[in-house]
């Protein structure tokens, strides 16, 4: 086991030696990222072709090389199944969000709860702590579903019934004074207004 660790160290150090530059590697990193967007053009600086993601591994040797590239154990490395959607040899990591990681461990990047060099999930930007949370819910899922849909369904039913069978205070047509506003309505002042009976006592 000690020997295997040494081999791993040697491989990682050898592979990463290209990154320990004394020059302005931040600018070269930018260039590499910009040019990486145009797939056929790459600067001579930046990561070598062997360090970038490649096609789906067919042979066990390719698998071992890909596992080394991604800093994973050969047994842990499992590429995303090749269904033509363009994943290449990128590893399939568990779909756990960063909410589930230990908040008390001393991560290299505490807000992302990630260590430097750790393989990044394909949907990492979805699983950050501001977004999708896959941690277990405090109450059982079926209970939550029952409560929510029960309440919403009940309220919908009651509002529907209220629309169908309205209930309000008894109302009648509006009653006006001064003999049903006889003069205001422009009728003849000499003429006797007709009697309108609004109620019976």
């Amino acid at each position: 086991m000690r020997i295997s660790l040494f081999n791993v160290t040697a491989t990682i150090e050898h592979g990463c030696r290209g990154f320990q530059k004394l020059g302005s590697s931040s600018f070269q990193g930018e260039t590499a990222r910009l040019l990486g967007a145009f797939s056929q053009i790459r600067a001579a600086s930046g990561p070598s072709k062997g360090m970038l993601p490649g096609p789906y591994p067919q042979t066990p040797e390719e698998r071992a090389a890909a596992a080394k590239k991604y800093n994973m154990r050969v047994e842990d490395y499992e590429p995303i199944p090749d269904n033509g959607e363009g994943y290449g040899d990128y590893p399939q990591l568990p779909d756990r969000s960063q909410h589930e990681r230990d908040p008390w461990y001393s991560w290299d990047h505490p807000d992302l709860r990630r260590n430097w060099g750790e393989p990044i999930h394909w949907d990492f930007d979805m699983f950050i702590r501001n977004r999708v949370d896959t941690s277990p819910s405090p109450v059982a899922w079926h209970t939550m579903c029952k409560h929510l849909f029960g309440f919403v369904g009940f309220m919908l039913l009651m509002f529907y019934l209220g629309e169908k069978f309205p209930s309000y205070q008894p109302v009648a047509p509006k009653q006006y004074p001064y003999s049903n506003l006889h003069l205001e309505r422009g009728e003849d002042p000499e003429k006797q207004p007709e009697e309108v009976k609004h109620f019976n006592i």
Partner: protein
Amino acid sequence: MADYREAPLATRPKTLDPAEYFNLSLDQRRAEEERAGLRAQLKRQYQMQLNNPHRKELIEDPALTRWVYARTNPYNHFRATKKTSLLGGLFGVVPLFVLYYVLKTDRLCLTP
């Protein structure tokens, strides 16, 4: 917590996983040790770069570079299968026709 049942869309926390407490075979322990070894090597590299007093530039993360490259270049490994063709047609071709028809018939003349 013996009756804990995980939700369909959530996961069981690692601390409630019985395999972590009961079935620790030698192989599993060796696997955990190897993983810890890899983690320790990466941590060491990062710390060496972080605390290097002569370092003037940003520490570049190769895992991040690989992730960005993989996400921006899926068409290198794209293949036209049934599923990808269906998705491409559904999202790229059908909306053109549907939108044309909908927008045309939505105008005042109400005819295409």
